C-alpha cells in the first residue's frame, strides 16, 4: 500500500518490481488521477487500485493487511511551532501501519519536515512500534538522493529522513 501516493511513484516502482496488487491512497482526487495515469503509462493491465481518501480514515475503513506499506506524507511541520503536533502525527501514522503490515512485512517510512530531526523522527517511529506491539528492525536508513546534495557545514539542509523496517 502506497499512502499519500501523490504522483504514484512508489506504486509504479512496486508494480514494476512484481507486486501482485498495489493500493494507492491520497486525499487529493487530482493526485489519484495522476497516479492512475502514471501506472497506465508504464504497464498494461497492472493490478492497481486507487482511493481518493484521507489516509487515516482509509486505515479505519479498509481492514486489509499488506506485505509492504509506504508512508511518505507531505511535511507535517513546516515551522518550529508545529513540531510537537507533527511528532504526534508521525507516531499515529506509523502505529497504524505497524498494526496493518503482515508478519515479515516491510514498512518504508519517511519524514520531509525540516524541523523534525532524524533523531526525533526515529523516536516517534519507535514509540509507534511499542504502541503496536510489533518487533521492528531497521533494514536501511534513507536520505536525500545525490541531486539534493547537503553541505556538511549546513546540516539543516538534510530534510528527508527515511527508514526501511522489517516488522515481525
Amino acid at each position, binding site marked *: 500500500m502506497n499512502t499519500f501516493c*501523490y*504522483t*504514484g*511513484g512508489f506504486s*509504479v*516502482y512496486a508494480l*514494476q518490481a512484481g507486486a501482485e496488487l498495489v493500493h494507492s491512497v491520497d486525499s487529493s482526487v*487530482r*493526485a489519484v488521477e*495522476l497516479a492512475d*495515469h*502514471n501506472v497506465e*503509462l*508504464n504497464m498494461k493491465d497492472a493490478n492497481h487500485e486507487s482511493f481518493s481518501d484521507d489516509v487515516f480514515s482509509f486505515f479505519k475503513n479498509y481492514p486489509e493487511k499488506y506485505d509492504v506499506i509506504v508512508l511518505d506524507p*507531505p511535511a507535517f511541520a513546516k515551522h518550529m511551532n508545529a513540531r510537537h503536533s507533527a511528532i504526534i502525527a508521525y507516531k499515529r501514522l506509523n502505529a497504524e501501519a505497524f498494526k496493518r503490515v503482515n508478519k515479515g512485512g516491510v514498512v518504508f517510512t519517511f519524514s520531509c519536515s525540516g524541523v523534525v530531526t532524524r533523531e526525533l523522527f526515529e523516536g516517534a517511529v519507535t514509540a509507534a512500534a511499542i504502541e503496536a506491539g510489533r518487533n521492528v528492525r531497521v533494514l536501511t536508513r534513507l536520505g536525500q*538522493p*545525490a*541531486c*539534493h*546534495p*547537503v*553541505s556538511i*557545514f*549546513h546540516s*539543516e*539542509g538534510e530534510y528527508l529522513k527515511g527508514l526501511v523496517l522489517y516488522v515481525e
Partner: protein
Amino acid sequence: MSIKQVILKHGKEEALKRRHPWIFSGAIFKAEGNPGNGEIVHVLTGKNEPLGTGFYSRGSIAIRLFEFDVVDANAKYWSAKIGKAIEFRKSIGIIGNENTNVFRLFNAEGDGVPGLIIDYYNGVAVIQCHTHGTYALRDMFTEALKDNLGKDLKAVYDKSAESLGEEGAENGYLYQAKGFNPEEIQTVKENGLEFAVDWVSGQKTGFL
C-alpha cells in the same frame, strides 16, 4: 549602485570559519544604509576584512551567504553558479543519463545559494524561491539557465508563490522556447519509468 556593507560584532566571524552560511541578527554590529529585505550585502569584520556576500533579511536569520568572500554578484556570476551545479550533476552521472531526465538541478545551500531550488523536468526548469533575495533574482536565474542549458531548456516556470508566502507573488512561466506548448501534458523519465508531471497545479514543484 554600490553594495551596502554589514559589519559583524567582534569575534562573530568565527562562526563563518565553520562555513555555515547563516548569520543571525545578534551577530551584526552595524548594517550600513539600512538594507532592504532580500538586498545583497557585503559582510565584513570590524577591521574591514572581507567575510562574505549574501542576502539581507529582516528575520532572525539576518544574512544568508552565497559566497564566503566579497564578490560582485552580476549576471556572469550567477551564470557560473548555476553552471557549477550542472557540472557537478554531470560529473556524478545525474545529467546525461539516458534513463533519467528528471532531477533537482539546484539544491539551495547544498549548491551554494540559500533559498533557491530548481527542479528539471525533461527540459522544463521549475524555480522555487524561498526568500525575497532569490525571488528578486528570478529573471537572472532564468538567463543563467538559458546560458548553461541552451537547447536543453524548453521553459522556465516560477513556482514561488507558496514557498515565499508573499502576497502578490504569482506563479507563471518566465521563459518559453519556440514550440513549447504549456497545455501539453509533460512526461518525464526516472530510472526508465515514465511519469506525467504537473508543476502548475501539483504539490511542491510537481514531482520531486
